[in-house]
C-alpha cells in the first residue's frame, strides 16, 4: 500500500462553489485516518502544467459562470490534455457539477454557441431554455457502477440547469430514487469512465457517501483498512 498520495485539486479558487472542498477534505482525512499522508496540490490558472505530474487523484468542482469561463479557457488549453491522458491511464478522478459538464464534449447554452468541453467523458450537456425548470433539491440514488459498489445508496443535493446525456463509452453511476439526476428524464445520475466519476451531487458527494471516497482512494493506493463510519452512515440514512 502507498504511504503518501498527491490529490490535485483543479481550480480551488474558481471551481469551488457548493462546498466542493468537502470532497477534498473527505479524501484527505480518510487517507490520514489510515496512516496515509495525503497532500493537496492546488492547481489554478497560474500553476504550471508540470505540477500535475505524479498526481494520484484529481478533483474538480462547481463554479459561477464567470469563474468557469476563466478556468475553462485555461483547462482546454493547458491542463486538460494532460489530465485526459492520465485518466485514460487509470488515474482516479472526481468531477462534480459544472466540472462534470465540462469534462464532456460540449455544453449547449439556451442562447448562443456550444461551449466545447475537455472531452474526457463521452457525454454532452444541453440547457433546454430559460423557461425550463432548474433541477434543484435533495437526491437519493442507487449505485449501478462501479460494480463493486452496486446496490449502495448515495445521497446529495443537485442544482443545475443543464441536462446531461451519456454516450456509449460511459456507464451510469446510479439510478435515481428521488430527485432528477443527469437530465430528469432517463433516471440516471452521474457517470463512470475507467477510474473517474462524474456527478451532479454536491452536498458534497464524498463525506456522506464514504464508499465512493474509499473506492477512489483504493484506486490510488490499493486495499484499504476499514475505519469507523457510524456518523457517515447515520447521515446517509437520514436523507433517504
Amino acid at each position: 500500500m502507498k504511504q503518501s498520495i498527491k490529490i490535485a485539486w483543479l481550480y480551488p479558487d474558481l471551481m469551488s462553489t457548493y462546498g466542493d472542498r468537502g470532497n477534498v477534505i473527505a479524501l484527505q482525512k480518510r487517507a490520514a485516518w489510515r496512516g496515509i499522508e495525503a497532500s493537496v496540490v492546488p492547481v489554478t490558472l497560474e500553476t504550471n502544467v508540470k505540477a500535475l505530474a505524479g498526481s494520484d487523484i484529481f478533483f474538480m468542482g462547481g463554479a459561477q459562470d464567470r469563474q468557469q469561463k476563466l478556468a475553462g479557457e485555461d483547462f482546454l488549453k493547458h491542463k486538460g490534455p494532460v489530465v485526459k491522458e492520465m485518466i485514460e491511464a487509470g488515474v482516479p478522478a472526481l468531477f462534480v457539477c459544472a466540472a462534470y459538464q465540462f469534462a464532456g464534449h460540449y455544453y449547449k447554452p439556451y442562447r448562443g454557441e456550444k461551449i466545447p468541453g475537455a472531452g474526457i467523458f463521452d457525454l454532452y450537456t444541453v440547457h433546454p431554455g430559460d423557461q425550463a425548470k432548474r433541477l434543484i433539491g435533495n437526491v437519493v440514488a442507487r449505485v449501478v457502477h462501479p460494480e463493486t459498489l452496486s446496490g449502495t445508496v448515495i445521497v446529495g443535493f443537485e442544482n443545475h440547469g443543464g441536462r446531461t446525456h451519456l454516450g456509449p463509452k460511459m456507464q451510469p453511476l446510479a439510478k435515481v430514487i428521488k430527485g432528477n439526476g443527469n437530465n430528469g428524464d432517463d433516471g440516471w445520475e452521474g457517470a463512470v469512465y475507467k477510474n473517474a466519476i462524474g456527478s451532479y451531487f454536491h452536498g458534497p458527494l464524498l463525506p456522506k457517501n464514504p464508499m465512493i471516497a474509499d473506492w477512489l482512494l483504493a484506486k490510488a493506493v490499493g486495499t484499504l483498512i476499514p475505519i469507523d463510519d457510524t456518523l457517515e452512515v447515520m447521515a446517509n440514512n437520514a436523507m433517504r
Partner: protein
Amino acid sequence: MAWFDRLTVIFAKSISVISTSLGLGAGETWPGEIAVSIRPDIARFLSGKLSDGTILVAGTNGKTTTSLMIKTILEHIGDSVVHNATGANLLNGIVSSFIRNTDWLGRVTADMGIFEVDENSLPVVLKYITPKRLVLLNLFRDQLDRYGEVDVIVEKWMTALAKLPKTTEVILNSDDPGIAGLGRVIKGKVTYFGLNDPGKYLGVREHATDSIFCFRCGHRLTYDGIYYSHIGSWRCTKCGNTRPVPTVTRGPSPLPGLYNQYNALAAVGVATSLDIPDKEVKKALRGFAPAFGRQEEIRVGKKTVKLFLSKNPAGFNASLKTVLEMGAKDILLVLNDRIPDGRDVSWIWDVDFEMIPPSVTVGVSGDRRYDMAIRIKYADIDIPSSRVYQQLEDAIVKSLKKPLKGNALYILATYSGMLEVRKILKGRKIL
C-alpha cells in the same frame, strides 16, 4: 388616487388588527401582501408620505444590525421612525411595517423610514421607493439555491442603481470589490466606508471568498491585506481598477467582531451624510442593544446563552472567530434546511471549523445535525454521538446542565434554528 391608496391601507390594517386579535399571526408580511395585491405601487404612496425620506440597507450579512444601529441613532436625535425590525425584508414586509405605522385615516405616523432589504428584492423595492440614502454592505455566497450566484446579484443591482436619481446618496463598502464597483453607475453622491487597519489583516486567508476576480476585466485581484472573506484592500494590476479611498474609516462599534465594525461604519456613514454630529452618534450607540439573535444574550438561571445567527460561510466564519475571541469553550451548532435557511447545506464545508481548538466542547442539533456532525468530525474535532442532539430543547437543557467551561453557552444557528432557540428560551420567536 391618493384616497384609494389610503382606503387600501385602512382595509389591510383592519384585516391585520382583526386577525392578530384572533391570534392568527403577528402580520409581519401578509397585511403588506394584501395591500400590494390591491395596489402594486402602494409603497410609492406610503414612502412619499415620509417628510424626511427613506433609508434602505442591503447586503448579505449585517443588514438587520446596521439598520437597527441607524434607527437607534435617528431615534436618539428625536426622529420618529418606521422600521422593519422583525427582518421581514421583502416588499410585502416593508409595506406591512408601514401599515403598522398608520392611523385609522391611513396616514403614516412617522417622519422617516429605515428598512433592511433582501438582496433579490432590492431592484423591485427601488422601483417603488426612491430612497434618500442607500447603504450597500457586502455580497457573499448565501443560499445559492435561492439567491443564485454573487455575480448575478451584482449585475441586477447595477441595472437597478443606474436608474436612481441624483438625489439618492449611496453609502458603499470600499473593501468589498463587488460593492465598491457599483459606485461608477451612480448619479448621486457616493460615500465609501472601509477599514484602514493593516494590524487586523488575516494571516491565513479563509476558504470562503467570492469576489476575488476583477469585476471590470476578470483578472485575479491583488490584495495588500484581507480582513475577512474577500473584504480587504484590493486592486487589479491589469486594468488599474482599485479600491476607492474610504472617507468613513472610524466609528464606535458597540458589538464585538470585525464584521460589526463594518456595520458601525456604514451606520456612521449614514449619520454623517445626514449631518448628525459624531458626539451624538457615539452617545446613541453606547446604549445599543443587539437585534434578535445577533449576538443576543439570554440569561437562563445563573447561566448565559449567547446566540449568533450564522447562515452562510462568510457569516459563520465571522461568528466563529468572534466567539472564540470572546472566550467560548462550549459551542452548540444548530443547522436547519428549511425555506428561510436554504434547502442546500453543502456550504458548511466552506466554513473553517478547523479554527476551533481541542479545548472547546462542540455539540450539534437541528434538522441536518448529522451533516454538521460529519463536518465537525472531518475538522478532527471530537463529536461523540451523545452530543448529536435530535431535539433542540434537549440540546440546550443538556448543554446548560453540565458546568460550562467558559463564560457562556455559545449557540451558532441558521435562521429558523435561531428562531427556535429564542422560542425555547424566551417564549417567542422574534420580538
